[in-house]
């Protein structure tokens, strides 16, 4: 489209500068940016005025470009992602393995797409939206109450039975059952759009586990940062209290079923591969509730429990993001591994509140819209305040007769959900309706209003759809969240879908009334709240934390080993030392099995170590640095509701940074000169991650498991190094037979400074044993690691007998070897004792890891099968 910026003029108003960039919108649609005269709408004029003063349209463009880049950087930095499904993957949803620490994502995780400019909704418009949405939310609840009881709507022909009873979202096992507390819907989402006449129309409604609440929150944080002044001036309503409302409604209802015990509420996610997993973790963090997958929950005797590292903890409320039919493989979809067997029994027994209650999925059918006006009349005698896009259900012969001659301006939609996300396939509409009329619904096309987005130096008009949310107060009332998740189509005539390249906008709802400045975060807590907010650690979270600790330590060790190995290559060192280093490299995963040792071919050895560094999938057999970083990232990914954004950001940037530093042409190995600084940098980052894990995390049972994981890994690392360095036909032929070998080992265990300060004769084996084995004050000596391990084991949850059994796997005191035992012995005998100790502790460490896993984690794992 031809476009020439206005001539630069220092006198031009800000509004004119902004308007100068605007591409024309389709005149047959409502322009959110401009009046028909071409002038900016009042809200946008204020917005323009509150932008930083610039003199020219060009300067404005520059400023906006910069801000747009900042928005994208922030999304990168915060790791806001969105999983995009391929059609095939969508069909297999639920069949995907969901092992927290392992598994490979079947779909692409894309950075969340957020536009710089908000959609601004003025008070009068919001009043229309809000009234319409409140009425509709209450109506849907009333409808569900009727269908769970007298079913007047069916008997009076107000709702065709085929729309309810044929819909897979109508759950037969729950027929006739009211949910505990009587509330069906806690949150309902309405997708609305503005027509050419400026009125808002309803396009669709979501009643199961509507998505967007988390992204919406993050969108707000990011966009407000860019336009803080305009945000103030436009008197934009805050959204935080609506989140509080959602949680407190659920908590109230959960309290009623919990009786005298403290109600426990969790957020149920399908898992890391679900489309909107980011926001599940984000919301769980924000609301302060545990994020759980189906495997973290279990039903015993009609009650729902969460598997925690402390045993089974009762759960009374579930904020769910798992669609209805996946929730219980015993009575619903049998091919689902995402749900909780027995959940329906618990909900029928009234021992757990689900938000939303199961069985409302049929309301998502577009065909229902055709009957809601009549149902509203029936219940309240009132017409609907907000119209839905005109809808005809083809199963109604009269409706079909009415529209069959005028299909050009209608969209044909599937009445019932189809497998996967594929658009419905049908040949000719007449033929499709002839085959199965009930399955089709026609909807009028609405020319959606055009919202401005900033890109390529211009304000481009894009079709916009806003998702707004109604939240129940649990007492029959509803509240509309004053904001929304606006999505725009990727092109002027495209469809609006985040799956198909759409992008999102922050949604600013202006008010003339007082601003609610409630913030979720700083609030005065009651003693009860404190108990409730002490989040239990699910077995899966515990396991992921344990592995986070192990992988962090393992990565630190291997990075240090890689540095030492590569630095050693050009140096003259005795053969036993070179052999020890290559053995260690092999056994640590730095070099693949079968590679010649350093003695046999230094060149080949070096090449294979270099080649392995960036191999994240261990394709060549080396479980080297990139592999460990990826494992670390996966463990952290599953812990996003617990880790600080900083820690998660750092973990992600370590992997990306290391890959980038080593990236070169395909057949070109990175040189040690390039690798060594990257390793140094990585070492520092790892130290920072370790620091956050040690100092910045709450010391609950989860943290303790992380620490135990780290210490077990360290115990194994120290023992392995000692074993490799001391092992030889004779002591003289071992790596420790030379000063170089002794210093190298001490350096690998990060103890060189102490060693040099404390001991004069470096080849003295007793000195080495003292520092690396016996000294409890050295955090990297065997005794030091064991001392801490014993301390942390004592604080693990569980009965004392269990903890004693764990402790019994370790020496009762010190490292299990004393200075007295070593004194007077010759080097050979000291070496033998050290090696035996190393072997014994290495196997103790493995046993301990296995016992800890079996004790605290196993219940969450193992796959369910239907028989």
């Amino acid at each position, binding site marked *: 489209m031809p476009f020439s910026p206005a001539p630069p003029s220092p006198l031009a108003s800000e509004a004119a500068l902004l308007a100068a960039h605007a591409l024309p919108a389709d005149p047959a649609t409502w322009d959110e940016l401009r009046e028909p005269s071409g002038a900016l709408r009042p809200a946008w004029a204020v917005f323009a005025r509150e932008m930083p003063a610039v003199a020219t349209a060009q300067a404005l463009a520059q400023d906006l470009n910069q801000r747009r880049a900042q928005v994208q950087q922030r999304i990168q930095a915060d790791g806001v992602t969105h999983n995009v499904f391929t059609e095939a993957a969508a069909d297999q949803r639920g069949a995907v393995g969901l092992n927290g620490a392992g598994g490979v994502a079947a779909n692409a995780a894309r950075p969340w797409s957020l536009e710089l400019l908000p959609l601004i909704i003025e008070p009068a418009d919001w009043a229309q939206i809000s009234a319409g949405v409140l009425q509709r939310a209450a109506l849907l609840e009333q409808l569900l109450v009727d269908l769970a009881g007298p079913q007047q709507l069916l008997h009076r022909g107000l709702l065709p039975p085929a729309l309810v009873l044929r819909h897979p979202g109508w759950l037969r096992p729950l027929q006739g059952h009211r949910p505990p507390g009587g509330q069906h819907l806690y949150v309902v989402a309405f997708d609305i759009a503005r027509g050419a006449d400026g009125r808002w129309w309803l396009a669709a409604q979501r009643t199961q586990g509507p998505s967007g609440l988390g992204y919406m929150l993050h969108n707000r944080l990011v966009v407000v940062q860019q336009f803080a002044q305009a945000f103030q001036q436009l008197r934009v309503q805050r959204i935080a209290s609506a989140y509080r409302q959602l949680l407190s409604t659920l908590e109230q209802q959960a309290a009623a079923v919990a009786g005298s015990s403290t109600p426990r509420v969790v957020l149920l996610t399908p898992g890391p591969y679900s489309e909107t997993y980011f926001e599940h973790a984000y919301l769980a963090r924000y609301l302060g509730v545990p994020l759980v997958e189906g495997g973290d929950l279990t039903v015993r005797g009609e009650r729902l429990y969460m598997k925690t590292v402390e045993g089974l903890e009762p759960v009374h409320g579930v904020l769910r993001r798992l669609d209805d039919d996946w929730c219980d493989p015993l009575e619903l979809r049998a091919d689902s591994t995402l749900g909780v067997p027995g959940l329906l029994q618990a909900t029928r027994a009234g021992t757990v509140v689900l938000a939303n209650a199961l069985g409302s999925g049929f309301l998502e059918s577009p065909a229902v819209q055709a009957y809601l006006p009549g149902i509203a009349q029936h219940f309240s005698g009132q017409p609907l305040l907000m119209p839905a896009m005109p809808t005809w259900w083809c199963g109604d012969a009269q409706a079909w007769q009415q529209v069959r001659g005028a299909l050009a301006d209608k969209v044909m939609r599937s009445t019932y959900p189809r497998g996967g996300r594929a658009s419905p396939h049908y040949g000719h509409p007449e033929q499709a309706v002839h085959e199965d009329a009930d399955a089709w619904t026609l909807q009028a096309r609405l020319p959606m209003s055009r919202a401005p987005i900033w890109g390529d130096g211009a304000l481009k008009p894009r079709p916009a759809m806003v998702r707004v949310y109604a939240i129940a107060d649990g007492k029959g009332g509803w509240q509309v969240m004053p904001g929304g998740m606006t999505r725009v189509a990727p092109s002027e005539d495209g469809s609006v879908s985040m799956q198909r390249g759409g992008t999102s906008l922050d949604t600013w709802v202006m008010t003339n009334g007082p601003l609610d400045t409630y913030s979720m975060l700083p609030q005065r807590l009651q003693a009860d709240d404190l108990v409730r907010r002490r989040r239990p650690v699910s077995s899966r979270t515990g396991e992921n934390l344990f592995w986070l600790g192990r992988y962090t330590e393992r990565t630190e060790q291997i990075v240090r080993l890689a540095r030492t190995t590569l630095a050693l290559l050009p140096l003259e060192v005795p053969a036993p030392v070179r052999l020890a280093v290559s053995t260690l490299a092999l056994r640590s995963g730095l070099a693949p099995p079968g590679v010649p040792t350093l003695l046999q071919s230094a060149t080949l050895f070096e090449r294979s170590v270099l080649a392995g560094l960036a191999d994240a999938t261990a394709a060549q057999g080396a479980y080297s640095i990139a592999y460990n970083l990826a494992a670390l990232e996966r463990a952290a990914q599953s812990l996003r509701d617990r880790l600080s954004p900083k820690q998660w950001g750092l973990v992600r940037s370590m992997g990306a940074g290391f890959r980038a530093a080593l990236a070169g042409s395909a057949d070109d190995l990175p040189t040690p000169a390039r690798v060594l600084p990257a390793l140094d940098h990585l070492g520092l980052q790892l130290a920072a991650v370790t620091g956050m894990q040690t100092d910045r995390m709450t010391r609950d049972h989860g943290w303790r498991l992380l620490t135990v994981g780290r210490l077990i890994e360290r115990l194994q690392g120290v023992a392995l190094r000692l074993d490799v360095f001391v092992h030889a036909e004779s002591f003289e032929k071992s790596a420790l037979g030379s000063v170089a070998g002794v210093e190298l080992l001490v350096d690998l265990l990060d103890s060189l400074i102490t060693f040099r300060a404390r001991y004069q004769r470096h080849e003295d084996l007793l000195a080495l044993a003292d520092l690396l084995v016996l000294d409890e004050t050295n955090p990297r000596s065997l005794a030091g690691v064991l001392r801490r391990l014993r301390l942390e084991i004592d604080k693990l949850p569980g009965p004392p007998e269990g903890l004693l059994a764990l402790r019994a796997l370790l020496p009762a005191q010190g490292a299990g070897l004393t200075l007295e035992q070593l004194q007077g012995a010759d080097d050979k005998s000291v070496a033998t004792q050290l090696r035996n100790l190393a072997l014994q502790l290495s196997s103790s460490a493995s046993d301990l890891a296995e016992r800890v896993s079996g004790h605290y984690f196993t219940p969450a794992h193992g796959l*369910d099968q239907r028989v």
Partner: protein
Amino acid sequence: MNSPLDAVPEAQPAPGAALLLEVQHDTHYRYATPVSLAHHLAHLQPLQDEHQTVLAFDLDIDPQPECPVPSQQAAQQAQSSSAAPPVQQFFSLTQPHRHLRVRASSRVRVAPRFKDLQPSQSPPWDDLAAGLRHSSGAPYQAAAQFSYPSPFVPRLPALRRYAEPSFPAGAPVVQGALQLMQRLHDEFSYEADSTDIDTPLDQVLEHRRGVCQDFAHLMIGALRMLGLPARYVSGYLLTQPPEGGPALLGADATHAWVQLWCPGTPGVPSTGAAAGWLDLDPTNNRVPGAGHVRLALGRDFCDVTPLRGVIRGGGQHTLAVGVSTRVLQSS
């Protein structure tokens, strides 16, 4: 689950005789590795209505469930007179186990039904179907829900084509259904193990062979494609014991057949829980009498699976099912 014996003609009771039957239904799972947690759902208790009285029922589960859950009345159809609610039993096992044996023992009195059936006096099938369409303004019929597709019975245009020759315009619905049953019986061969429960219906239709479940699903699907309500009956069939001996234990099997909704047909109950429903057994091409014991009714197999579960662990498993039916008394 089905042995060829369910194709054997049922024992012929004296016309008009009620039967007192005893049924023992054993289900035995053996697991390769221990199952650490299991949730099960059973539809093993015979239903109760005007024609069938359950005199005794016992469910014996080994190992003993730790959390036995009382029987639940599930799927209550509010205001519905179409069926008594099926009785379900839930139970779970929370201790590791390598096997599960569930033995359901029932004593049932079954009265003869459909004695005076007059197929030619049944309503025209097309009027019946039209009356269930929404736009007709006809009163709500709970039976309409059984005219919709269900998980095991998808809509297949080929099934409509198969059914149409038996249903010329205005034909009495029961006449059409009997002819359809006859054709299914003649044109499909009963072959044990030729299908399993996951064999899609279109394959059964294509290969023209299957077991009783498949024939029930086929017939239900064909009737539904015409807009007629049809449902799935899970049950037992009394089979002819070998000459001179008692019925062989475990030689029988669970059976499945069809119910067609044809209110107003002479000979079909017009009141009570079974009002308007006529049983049809396409596997044996007959209208069931007192030798068919009804366990549960549903849209298809998935609603009334005799025993199912979700287990953790277990590895590979084997399943053995044995049913024996015995006449205690004929009156």
